[in-house]
């Protein structure tokens, strides 16, 4: 595994994506550059509207029509994603990169059994015999921890956590290399959350998958991820090993996110929110975009935008660090 991890599977290079709403430009991603290595789990955290989901769907070439890639490239296994078309795109989606969507609880068809939904997905993309398909479904359900005898159940007969796991199994139907999990546990209770995250993590061990985990909750990252990327207002502000970032955060925004999380059993720690609200991306603040909410801002911050600077462990975009 360790050898594999040095090969990048996904390469974002200077990626800039804008949405155009009423002829107004809204820059959702601003010069994002980083690599995702084979076999790793990378977490992407940030508040609502920081561009995490845009980053995820850009990998599947599913950006909405009113958006445009202004600059930069996205490569998956050296294949340029934005240039994929027709049959190539169809084969790329789901068999190379699969996604677990935000509201997975509602992602299943209520009038079909989970088995028939999975068969449909598999047969749309491959020519397998019925027996092979059934075998694969049994294996997949087993992997995600659902008794294969439940394959003939309808979604309403499953609990929330089980539905989520079925959605994960469906994402695995065509043996993708990369899974993008977009807020897989938001608004799910803590018991389900723990079991879903455990399922995802087990997949990496069993199948050697690469996983991009998108969430606003930094508290689930320690257990799940190898590396962590922190985004703010469409920019990458800090990236590095998860343990380093959580134990020793460099960027003030990462520090603030960590202070906002309640931790069980520590009643001395007072949770502190981040004052203000995320900026409107159609008219972002000048200079460093975090400066209006930053406790450490000084003269330089409003005037010029800090670049992402490589450091010993990871990279940080903050004038305080340089």
């Amino acid at each position: 595994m360790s050898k594999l991890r040095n090969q990048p599977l996904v390469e974002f290079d200077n990626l800039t994506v804008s949405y155009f709403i009423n002829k107004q430009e809204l820059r959702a991603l601003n010069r994002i550059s980083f690599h995702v290595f084979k076999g790793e789990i990378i977490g992407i955290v940030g508040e609502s509207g920081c561009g995490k989901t845009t980053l995820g769907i850009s990998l599947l070439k599913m950006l909405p029509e009113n958006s445009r890639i202004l600059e930069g490239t996205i490569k998956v296994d050296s294949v340029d994603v934005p240039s994929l078309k027709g049959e190539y795109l169809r084969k790329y989606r789901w068999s190379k990169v699969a996604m677990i969507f935000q509201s997975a609880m509602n992602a299943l068809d209520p009038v079909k059994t989970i088995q028939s939904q999975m068969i449909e997905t598999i047969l749309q993309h491959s020519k397998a015999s019925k027996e092979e398909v059934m075998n694969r479904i049994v294996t997949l359900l087993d992997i995600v921890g659902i008794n294969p005898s439940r394959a003939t159940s309808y979604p309403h007969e499953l609990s929330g956590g089980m539905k989520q796991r079925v959605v994960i199994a469906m994402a695995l139907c065509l043996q993708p290399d990369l899974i993008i999990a977009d807020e897989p546990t938001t608004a799910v209770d803590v018991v389900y959350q723990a079991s879903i995250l455990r399922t995802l993590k087990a997949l990496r061990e069993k199948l050697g998958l690469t996983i991009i985990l998108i969430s606003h909750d930094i508290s689930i990252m320690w257990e799940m991820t190898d590396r962590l990327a922190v985004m703010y207002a469409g920019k990458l502000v800090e990236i590095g090993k998860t343990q380093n970032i959580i134990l020793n955060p460099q960027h003030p925004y990462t520090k603030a996110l960590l202070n906002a999380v309640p931790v069980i059993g520590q009643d001395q720690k007072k949770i502190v929110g981040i004052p203000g609200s995320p900026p409107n991306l159609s008219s972002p603040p000048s200079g460093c975009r975090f400066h209006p909410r930053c406790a450490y801002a000084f003269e330089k911050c409003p005037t010029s935008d800090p670049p992402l600077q490589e450091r010993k462990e990871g990279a940080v975009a903050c004038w305080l660090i340089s």
Partner: protein
Amino acid sequence: MLADKLEKPLYEPVIETQNLTVRFPVSNRIKLAYGGQKFIHAVNQINLEVERGEIVSIVGESGSGKTTLSRTIAGLVKPTSGTVKVDGEIVDYRKSKDLKKLWKKLQMIFQDPYSTFNPLTSVFESIAIPLRKFGISTNDADLQHKIKENIERVGLSYQELQNEYPNRLSGGQKQRLSIARALAVEPEVLIADEPVSMLDVSLRSGILDLLGDLNAKNGVTIIFITHDLAVAQCISNRIVVMFGGEIMEIGPAREVIHSPLHPYTQILMSASPKLTGETDLPKNYEGSVRKVKFDFEGCRFYTNCPLGNDLCTQKRPFLEKVGENHYVACAVTCCQGDGSKPNLSDLFKVYKFYKTGS
């Protein structure tokens, strides 16, 4: 007005439920999924007292009955049996007069701030509706003054927001406004149903602080519903842990967090994300309220409990006192019946059991 409220003696129950039960019928089509049971006891024989001026958290996973309990108290679900006393008077949920009186005293904040406002009603109007309905403001000047006061109390700007419509507001702003709207009628009790679970982590603490301030400054009693013990610990004086419609453990927040006695409380503790370190949920724990057998004689949690023994199948455990204001309903960890105190080393064994999952 608020001063009057504070002069009433502290520590009197403002809400008292007696044997409160809510059953929902299970339709024939989905009966199988519930093991052929005809009814789900969403809330079963709950006796809960909420004292004036305290913050009580009700904690449990989805389907444990915490929302039904709060909605029943608020009069949005009709109880099957049992009574609710508010300020010592029994509320008759069939009478609209009683309901109006209840809602003057008790207001609710809902889980999803994105769907709680009418999209065609401006912020000003949304808060004006309860003020007019309960006859609090009779003239326009007073109305405007009250709305301004309420919007500013939750930390928002009246100037900027009064004419906005909900689609222009962020999630955090909406949740603050729904608190402002609930507070407009100056209620004594606020029921907050998962007010932060839909919000970004960075906005959560703002809402929690706001609720804490309201409690400290204005003496508003708060019933706070959440699935996350870590959030409950931040805000509450007392924690009530529910499963399958029944109270499993109830006690002062500190005690419940630092020495959880019920196996279910320990499971919730282990599932709560730790910033540094692994969650240690038992490997085979498949939290599911659907496994609960409602016509079962014994403990509700038995089918999910890794510690269950014969004793648990024979009779329903009762809430036994284990400390100051601390009660636990578990036959295994509390040596029920013989009145002896639980042994700390036994408890440690239980906790270790959960950590290793074997």
